[in-house]
Structure formats: C-alpha cells, structure tokens
C-alpha cells in the first residue's frame, strides 16, 4: 500500500519529472468517489460562448493538440483495494461530444473506458465538464482557456503568449500534478486547536427534480455596475454576491416560517465559498487545491439588514482567509486521510463511512455553495471572440442549489445549478439586481430539462 507518499505521486522508473502511470487522488478528491450517485455526479462545467458557430473538426484538432500538455486530465479513475486512484489513460482519444440539455449529469466516471472529463459543443459554445475528483474550477478554467486559444489559433488568429496560459508543445511542469495539500500542513507537536463543526443550516425547501435532470439558470449582468455596487458597500464582488444570496435566503426562510406557523423554526443560513489556495501557498498544481470559508448569518438573533449582512460577510471572509487558519484546516483534513485506521480500511468500507460522515458534516451544514472563478484572462487578440463565459456549479441533492460566478470583460455571469423544483432563490436573486436598475439577461434550460421526465 504505497499510495501515501507525501507528494501523492507514485514513483516511476523514468525519473521524477516524467508523468507517472498513476496518481493517488488528492486530499479533497478522496471523498467524492464515495458520494457518486446519479444525482451527485461531482461534475462541474465551464462554457466559452463564442460569437461564431463552432467547427467541430477544428475543435477536435485543438483538443488533440492540447491533451498532451495536460496528461493529468487524460486519465481514468479506478478503484483500488484501499483507495481510488487515477490511471493514465492511453486507450482512446478524448473526443468532442454533442451537448445535452442536462449538463453535468449522466456521467459514468469510475472504471476502464470512463473519462472524468467531457468536452462538449453546441451552437456557439464550447463546454468542458470535469469531475471534482481530478481538478477544481481553476484547473478546469486553465484547460478551457488553453483549448479555446488553440481553437482560435487553428481558426487563423495568432495569439500572443500570456503568463499562466499553457500552450501546446510546452514541457509539463511536474508541479502541475502534485498534491499540494500535504506540503501545506503544520508540523506542530503541541496539538492544534479544534474547529467545531457548524450547525445544520437552512436549505431550500423544495422537492427534488427527477433523477438525471439538472436545471441551470444563468444571468448575465454588467460586471462594472455590480463592482460599483460592491464598492459602494465597501466589499469585494464575491462578498457582495454572497451578501445578496444570504439576504434572499433570509427572506425565503422568513416567508416559509410565516406559511408554516409554529411548526417552522429559524435555522442559521450559511454559504460555502471555495477559496483558491494556489497564490497563498505558491502552488502550480492543476489538481484540486482549495478550501472553503463559510460566511453566514443567524436569523435566530433577529432580522439582518443588507448592510449588516455585507459587513458580516466581509469581516468573516477577511478573518478566515489567513494563511495560518488555512493551514490548520488543511492539517486537519490531511491528518484524517493519513491516519492508520483510515488507510487500512478497504475502499468499500471507506465509501460507507464517508457517506455517513458526509451526511452529518457535509452539505447539510450549508445552505448554498458559491464559487467565483474571477475574470477570464486570454491573449488580447481574442477579446472580440467571445460573448461571455459560463461556470455551472456541480449538482448537490443535499443543498439542492449551488451558485457560480465567472466574468469575461464586462459581462458577469451568475449561474444557478439547481435540483430543486422551485426557482424561488433564482427569482429573488435576479430581481434584487433588476430592482437596482441593472440589466439582467437570463438563459436557462428550465423548460426542457424535465419536460419528459416529470411524473416518472
């Protein structure tokens, strides 16, 4: 059982810089195989919306060209006796697939011939869907940026080099496939402070959509105007969006309480916001390297004004985004993974244990996930090639709704991925911005995703 080398990389005969035949799953990916189900696909999606229709043959060529630059994505997931692992995929070439009305769903991820990555095309859109078992949003965005850059190059646009944008033919840096978590732990012999688990949070009260369906609602907003609103409040864009979500959830919970009379009771409202740890720990990994902060409010203490929520979110984020606090959380997670008991447990037992752990300490502690990947950076020659970019969050049958944000030039795209039948939160959220005088443009698969499955 040599799967726990500190680097997380299996030894190879060809030397340390050669991409190995297999890799262990990184620390945060280890829980996902246990949670896989038709509703919990662990897939998230990034879409580049071009201004012209996609040429499939050209996209396939671009994909073939850049896959060699990303060997850690050309892989299969396999189940070992004790842990799942990543095996280099050499059998078939990754191909562009036709898109589906239900993104991120219906994916077989584990086993021979099943890929944790899908490249899909529809109309003017190139989408990549990644399982969280191999990378996080930042890694996936880097891949899609490289893919569309190559696609545009094949279309005749010459692109100037850009820092942080991998190009075809480059030598792959071994740091790109490292598991960066173990390197960030604290080696304290004096024990570490405990992190108390948060209470169960309020979640959207709605029945689930049929299995296999996933409703996506994207709203396009003028980024500069949203940033101006955030500045006016003295917070960052992510903090502002988080505050709006908390404000909407507070209203929804209060309305629900009114409807249910004394049967209902107030619960804390808490978001889970992933934080990219790469800049903090100087990591270049393309695999998962993030942690969560959980800004929230507790309506049991009284109703919060929007200003109070924004203030609370701002200070919570600033307090938790300290390197030392992140180290503490990473250490807790890595120690859990490396304990003898966990390592000796067979994979199928781990699956059962992790399901129970996730049930009590997972998504039910949070009302919603909010992920912001920031601004898409591409060579300046491609400025006119895209209308906007979309980031679709992974589905969660527990919190039901997740939210993701991505901006391209002056277009901020806020996407809600939902398994709830109701659209109350999305409605409240976009109405908040339209009431502020912002122009909101909405795209959705809402009418078609469940038409044929309702009542099944």
């Amino acid at each position, binding site marked *: 059982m040599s799967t726990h080398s500190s680097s997380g990389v299996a030894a190879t005969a060809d030397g340390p810089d050669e991409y190995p035949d297999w890799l262990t799953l990184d620390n945060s990916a280890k829980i996902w195989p246990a949670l896989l189900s038709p509703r919990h696909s662990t897939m998230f999606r990034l879409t580049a919306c071009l201004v012209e229709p996609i040429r499939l043959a050209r996209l396939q060529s671009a994909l073939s060209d850049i896959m060699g630059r990303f060997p850690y994505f050309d892989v299969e997931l396999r189940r070992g006796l004790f842990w799942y692992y990543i095996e280099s995929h050499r059998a078939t070439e990754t191909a562009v697939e036709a898109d589906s009305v239900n993104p991120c769903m*219906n994916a077989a991820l584990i086993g021979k011939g099943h890929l944790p990555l899908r490249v899909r095309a529809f109309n003017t859109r190139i989408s990549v869907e990644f399982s969280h078992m191999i990378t996080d949003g930042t890694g996936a965005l880097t891949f899609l940026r490289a893919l569309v850059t190559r696609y545009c190059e094949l279309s005749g646009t010459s692109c100037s080099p850009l820092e942080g944008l991998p190009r075809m033919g480059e030598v792959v840096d071994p740091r790109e496939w490292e598991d960066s978590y173990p390197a960030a732990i604290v080696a304290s012999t004096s024990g570490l402070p405990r992190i108390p688990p948060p209470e169960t949070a309020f979640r959207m009260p709605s029945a689930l959509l049929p299995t296999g369906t996933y409703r996506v609602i994207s709203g396009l907003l003028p980024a500069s105007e949203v940033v101006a609103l955030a500045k006016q409040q003295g917070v960052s864009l992510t903090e502002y969006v988080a505050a709006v979500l908390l404000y909407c959830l507070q209203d929804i919970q209060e309305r629900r309480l009114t409807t249910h009379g004394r049967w209902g009771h107030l619960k804390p409202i808490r978001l889970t916001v992933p934080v990219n740890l790469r800049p903090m720990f100087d990591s270049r990994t393309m695999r998962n390297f993030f942690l969560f902060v959980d800004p929230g409010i507790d309506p049991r203490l009284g109703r919060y004004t929007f200003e109070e929520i924004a203030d609370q979110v701002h200070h919570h984020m600033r307090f938790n985004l300290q390197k030392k606090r992140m180290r503490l959380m990473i250490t807790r997670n890595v120690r859990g993974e490396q304990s003898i008991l966990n390592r000796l447990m067979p994979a199928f037992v781990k699956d059962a244990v992790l399901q129970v752990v996730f049930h009590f300490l997972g998504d039910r502690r949070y009302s919603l996930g909010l992920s912001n990947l920031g601004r898409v950076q591409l060579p300046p020659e491609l400025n006119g090639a895209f209308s906007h970019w979309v980031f679709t969050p992974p589905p969660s049958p527990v919190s039901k709704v997740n939210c993701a944000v991505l901006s391209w030039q002056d277009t901020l795209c806020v996407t809600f991925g939902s398994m709830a039948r109701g659209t109350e939160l999305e409605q409240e959220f976009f109405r908040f911005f339209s009431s502020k005088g912002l122009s909101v443009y*909405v795209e959705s698969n809402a009418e078609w995703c469940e038409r044929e*499955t309702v009542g*099944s």
Partner: protein
Amino acid sequence: MVFCRSCGVRVEPGHQACPLCSNPLTSADEAALPTSQAFAREREAVISPDDLLRRRLGAIALVLAAVLVPTALVCILIDVLYGGSGWSRLVIALLVLTGGLGVTPRLFFHNPLVIGLVDVALIGAFLVAADLMGPWHGWSIGIGLPILGAVALAVVLGWLALSQYRERTGFVLATFLGIGVMLCLVIDATVSAATRGQVELLWSLIALATIGPLILTAVILQLILPASNRLRRYLHW
C-alpha cells in the same frame, strides 16, 4: 429580446415562459428565435426513479440470493445427515419468504396495491406451508387465512385512501384508524372461534370504543378543514 414584466429581466429567445417565475412570455415587440441558442434540447438518457429503484432492488435481491441459497443448502444437508426429520423444509419456506417479501414483487410490478397484495399472498403461502409441515395442523386455515384476508382488505383500503384522498389528511387518518379497528375485530373473532369454538368479541370492543370517536373526529376535521387555513397548515403532510 423577450422581457419578463414580473421579474424585470430579459429572457433568452426560444422560451415560452420565464425561467424564473414561469409567467408566460409575450414577444410583442420582437419575434423570438425558434430555438434556444444556449442549451441543446436533445434529452439524453435519463435514469428514471423507477429504473433506479429497480436496479437497487435487483442488487439487494442478488445479495439476498447469495446469502439465502447456500444457507438453504446447508440446512438440507444437515437435516438429511442427522435423521431427515424434515425441519429444513420449514427453514426453506422461511428463507423463500425472506427473499421474496418486499423486494421481489417490486422488481416485477409498479402498482403499490399489487406489490402489497403479492406480499400478503407470500405470507399466506408461508403460513400454509409451515402449517402443513409443522405439528400444528389446521391453524393456518382457522386463524391465519382469515387474518390475512383482513390484511389484504386493509392493503386495498389503505391504497384507496392514499390514492384518492392523499391531500385530505382527515380522511386518510380515519381510514387507517378504521383499518386498525377492523384488524382488531377480525383477530379477536378468529382467535376466539379457534380456541373456544364460538365467536366472542372481548378486547377488540375496547379498541372500537377508544378509536371510534377518533375516526369521527378525523372525518369532522376533514370536513371543516377547507374552511380553515390554520388547520390546513397544522395538518399538512
């Protein structure tokens, strides 16, 4: 561009209703494009909840078979080796019941009424088999089958109540309480007939006297429920 007056947002062409509030959209100002430019409309193979349930039940049935069949074989072997008194047949009947109950009917039938009745029939078959093989001849006809008949009737009534009055809590409650009373009466009558040779209702009359008013209350509540929002809120399920 289509505009939703309720939400104040512009909606992508191709939608008949606003994705946020489901209000119908009118494109009086500009003609909507015929299809969405953002999402493919082709529905990919979606696993229906029924298929998923059947797949899981299939797996459970396989596991049960893997455990029960070897157990049955071992029992037969031991029975034959140590005198062959036939007790293993009783064990096999019990194992068949364990394997079949709940799981197997759901693999073949969709209707909960049919599933419930098949389960009752399986239990009946087991009782008769146990009776024929054991030392207590005749009790399955005298006690077991009348009670099973009442249980089958209870399944039918329960299914009718849930399918017809699912939203009417009072009627459903009254039906289930009524089923409870009926089962008490049947069990009491059957047992007394089998043990004392005549039908005598004893403890079941107490059940009837206790539960009867509750049934009446549930029905009255249901009749006045539509007039009271507060009651509907308290009793919703």
